[in-house]
């Protein structure tokens, strides 16, 4: 745990990366629905005022206009809270972006349960599930500043629509600068024969910490960053399934329709039946509290994940 160093929130990394890219490319536009503050885009607006388009609080129009701009050749980064972007304007995402193949880059900010005690109206624990069911939109959930920077750089010329989601809190550095990043390709941080954690997005750091706890107990533990839910790196999961006893998926999303569901479906259809635990937000009235308290309640913390892995491993051995 001590080996991880804290870095800035992914949102800040996103905003700084985009400002640098847009300074060199006038076709890059930020389109936002009264979210430049929460999207850390105030410096972008001040530095490149001609490259930020304000739509106001009107998510349907936000996405429809973004699709129109993209159809005319602009590199459009549409920024809004993930909870509203992927529900209020879902039909615009489905039809105007994905079906019409307008390569908008949808940036869902303050995703998952980042808004904490603001409650379920502001949580987005459905977005992977709904977007996975729509053809022609890629889904990436970066875990740290490195993955954030890489996916934003890749998004500029990405040929298809893409949804990128991130939270608000400072992250830990999880990768070295020379790590290879590609949309749709998992990053294997470590391999293990007892337990493999497969995490998407910001909970990856908790999985890394959980792995450290279990390694101190003598277990062999792997960690894989499944930053892309679409395209989904099936090969990485099938490889891991061949050499690990227990798999634990971790996501800041409903346990239905997200990473865990994808893994379970993939494994079953390929003849694997390892012991799998899906850790996320259960199907219930989400407990109230800060993001940290919600994570703690649902076991999305190093100790909780380690305990889940231990119990699952022991149950299998019994």
């Amino acid at each position, binding site marked *: 745990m001590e080996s991880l160093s804290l870095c800035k929130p992914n949102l800040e990394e996103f905003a700084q990366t985009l400002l640098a890219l847009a300074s060199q490319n006038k076709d890059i536009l930020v389109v936002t629905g009264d979210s430049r503050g929460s999207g850390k885009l105030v410096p972008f607006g001040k530095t490149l005022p001609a490259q930020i388009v304000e739509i106001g609080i009107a998510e*349907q*129009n936000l996405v429809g*206009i973004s*699709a*129109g701009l993209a159809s005319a*050749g602009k590199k459009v980064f549409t920024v809004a809270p993930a909870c509203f972007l992927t529900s209020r304007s879902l*039909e615009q995402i489905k039809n105007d972006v994905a*079906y019409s*193949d307008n390569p908008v880059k949808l940036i869902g900010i303050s995703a998952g349960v980042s808004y904490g005690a603001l409650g379920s109206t502001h949580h987005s624990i459905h977005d992977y599930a709904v977007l996975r069911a729509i053809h022609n939109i890629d889904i990436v959930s970066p875990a740290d500043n490195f993955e954030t920077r890489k996916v934003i750089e890749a998004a500029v010329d990405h040929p298809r629509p893409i949804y990128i989601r991130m939270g608000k809190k400072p992250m830990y550095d999880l990768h070295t600068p020379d790590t290879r990043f590609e949309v749709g390709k998992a990053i294997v941080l470590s391999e293990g024969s007892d337990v493999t954690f497969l995490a998407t997005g910001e909970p990856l750091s908790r999985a890394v910490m959980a792995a450290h706890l279990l390694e101190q107990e003598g277990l062999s533990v792997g960690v894989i960053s499944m930053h892309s839910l679409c395209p989904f790196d099936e090969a990485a999961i099938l490889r891991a399934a061949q050499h690990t006893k227990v798999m634990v998926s971790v996501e800041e999303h409903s346990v239905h329709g997200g990473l865990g569901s994808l893994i379970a479906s993939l494994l079953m259809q390929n003849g694997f039946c390892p012991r799998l635990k899906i850790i996320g937000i259960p199907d219930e009235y989400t407990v109230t509290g800060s993001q940290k308290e919600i994570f703690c309640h649902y076991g999305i913390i190093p100790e909780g994940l380690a305990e889940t892995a231990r119990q699952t491993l022991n149950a299998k051995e019994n």
Partner: protein
Amino acid sequence: MDYHELAYKSIQYRRTILRIIKQANAGHTGGSLSCIDILNVLYNHVLNVTPSSFDDPNRDRYIQSKGHSVEALYTVLADRGFFPQEDLENLGRFQSHLIGHPTRKVRGIEQNTGALGHGLSLAVGTALAAKIDSKTYRVYTLLGDGELTEGSNWEAAMAASHYKLDNLIVIVDRNTLQITGRTEDVMSLEPLEDKFRAFGFAIQHVGGHDLPALVKVFEQIPFKPGKPNLVLAHTVKGKGVSFIEDKAHWHHHVPTDEEYRTAQAELDQAERKWQAKHGIVEPL
């Protein structure tokens, strides 16, 4: 193209619309006949777009928000050479690109529409891109009056005005009918002009089947510099066939064999009247 030629095309377009709907045994008869004269004028007189310039970033754009009237759009695009006329025979067939709402799989179509209340936002974004890039193309979008109850239209109308999109032309096919009945009975739209004016539009009324008037109204764009343009086109749903006109149940009714023969006979008569007046048959 002069008005007489446009008028002849309108008759032939109506024949084609009825024929392809009858053949596919599906389609939106009333709305396609309602907007066909508008499309005729746009594609034969107004829009700076041809099959060869369709990939030109400077082309004019047409986005049909009332996507269900796609038979009118297919008919005009085929006539203009965006795709072969014989492709029209594939309407609604298995694995055909010519489905019941516009898709970009069909050359000439800018955006996939069909869910209502989407076209105006798409058009605003496309027009805004022209302003940002200092391009001179214009963006035309056709809205049904029934779809104006979708709130997204008014979000888009606000943005069109905010960004002073005088390169955006919104055409409302005001035939006063939607699938259930009169628009005013389903959900009152009037005073429609006042609503758009309050949202910052410059407005012109026009008879939506009056070809010279349509030509003239589009020649006046921009109606007022710095304001988005609204053409309130007063139309008759099912226009051109007496027993189809102004009847809600013809929204997506497919003519029976008898109705089809009668309808084509009425269009025969319209064509004979045109020939008597102009003395020639203009090949399409």
